[in-house]
């Protein structure tokens, strides 16, 4: 019976690996190739790469670079960062990427998402959404490009993404990013309760217990995390890590 996925999210900036806190303060961690090599040896379920500056700088995905990574990785790979054309998706697939995460364009250009889902199949297109609480404590969809809330209700937005045809939703909680204090179980539950497609929860994971909770209590199909897989100990020393599969099997039972 389907094993829930546990997914490291690697953030790229100028071809270096970084980690943020609350979508800010990107700290350089090291060489992505080295991280990928270690995670590949640990037989991770899946990997997500996000180029955090691509949308702001409006540039092309680094195809050759991704190709080099994909040639060594025999697991599903997802890439996100300023994807806005069918040709880019085709090039990414040819570079060995299975899935593309699309965030900004899902709001600016819904027809592009619909079209992409039809051409490449729903399972190739991941609708990515960032959520932040506003000053009144209300959840709102957030734009990392504009650095502002979009005034959209996250449940409505998840339904909107599903209606566009995406095969999966990648849900980020901005306030919890990098905090390692646990997922936002309420938010994840709200979203999983409103759509049929799988939801990847991200933001706040600090331990295997957090991962277990977001899957069992909030029905996430997959638990994604950044800090947990790149830092170790309370001083956050850089250490690329991933739980071994016997530990994961024991929580899924």
């Amino acid at each position, binding site marked *: *019976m*389907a*094993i*829930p*996925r546990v997914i490291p999210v690697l953030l790229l900036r100028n071809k270096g690996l970084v980690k943020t806190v609350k979508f800010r303060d990107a700290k350089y961690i090291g060489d992505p190739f080295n991280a990928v090599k270690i995670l*590949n040896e640990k*037989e991770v*379920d*899946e990997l997500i790469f996000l180029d955090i500056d691509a949308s702001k700088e409006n540039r092309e995905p680094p195809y050759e670079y991704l190709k080099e990574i*994909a*040639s060594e990785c*025999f*697991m*599903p790979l997802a890439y996100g960062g300023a994807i806005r054309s069918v040709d880019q998706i085709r090039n990414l*697939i*040819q570079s*060995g990427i*299975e899935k593309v995460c699309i965030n900004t364009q899902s709001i600016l250009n819904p027809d592009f998402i619909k079209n992409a889902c039809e051409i490449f*199949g*729903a*399972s*190739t297109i991941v609708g990515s959404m960032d959520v932040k609480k506003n000053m009144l404590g209300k959840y709102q969809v957030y734009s990392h490009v504009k650095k502002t809330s979009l005034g959209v209700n996250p449940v409505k937005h998840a339904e909107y993404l599903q209606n566009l045809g995406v*095969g*999966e939703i990648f849900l980020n909680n901005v306030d919890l990013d990098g905090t390692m204090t646990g997922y936002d179980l309420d938010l994840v539950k709200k979203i999983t309760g409103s759509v*049929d*497609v*799988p*939801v990847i929860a991200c933001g706040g994971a600090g331990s295997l217990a957090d991962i277990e909770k977001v899957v069992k209590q909030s*029905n996430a*199909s*997959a638990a994604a995390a950044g800090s947990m897989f790149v830092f170790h100990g309370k001083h956050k020393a850089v250490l690329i890590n991933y739980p071994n*599969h016997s530990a994961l099997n024991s929580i899924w039972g």
Partner: protein
Amino acid sequence: MTVIIDYQAGNLGSIQNMLKKLGEVAIITSNPEEVSQADHLILPGVGAFDFGMQKLRELNLVASLQKKVLEERTPILGVCLGAQLFCNSSEEGNESGLGFINGVVRKFPTSLNGKKFSVPHMGWDYVRPEKESKLLPTSEEGMRFYFVHSYGITCLDQSDVLAKNQYSMMYHSAFERDNILGVQFHPEKSHRFGKQLYKNFIEKY
């Protein structure tokens, strides 16, 4: 020579990549001439059932596949949509399949016994052989594979079933009938488990 059949349905590079790692030479082609010279065939595929069948026909591949598989008995491995196309029909479309095995393809329900299931099914699962097979030998550790699909195969000849898995319905995740093999999962995305499966297919069939 191993031939990976290109019918414009999905990414074939990752299969070729994995075979390269295994030291196997594989060509990607849609040319029926080249298909006819293969000693191993792989029919991959991601996408819709009707689209896949239409493309196979447009590329004049149906007849050459029938000859290779049914007359010459060349080993063929269907992967994901490729395996589904070996069946008679699919709930996803109106086209007839290749009919290499007696089977139908059904859509996953979004709930089972009141529990909600996300569709597509995306993720890993353990695959345990139901019968003796050189493709998927019994392993104590358990063989984990990556799945992405909204439809599942039901073999109508029980003797063809190589593995069963449960999601929002029970489906046959692998089948084997003489030289005809199919897997619903993606070995090329399944670490060393997948490498072993492709190695077995090429060396032992």
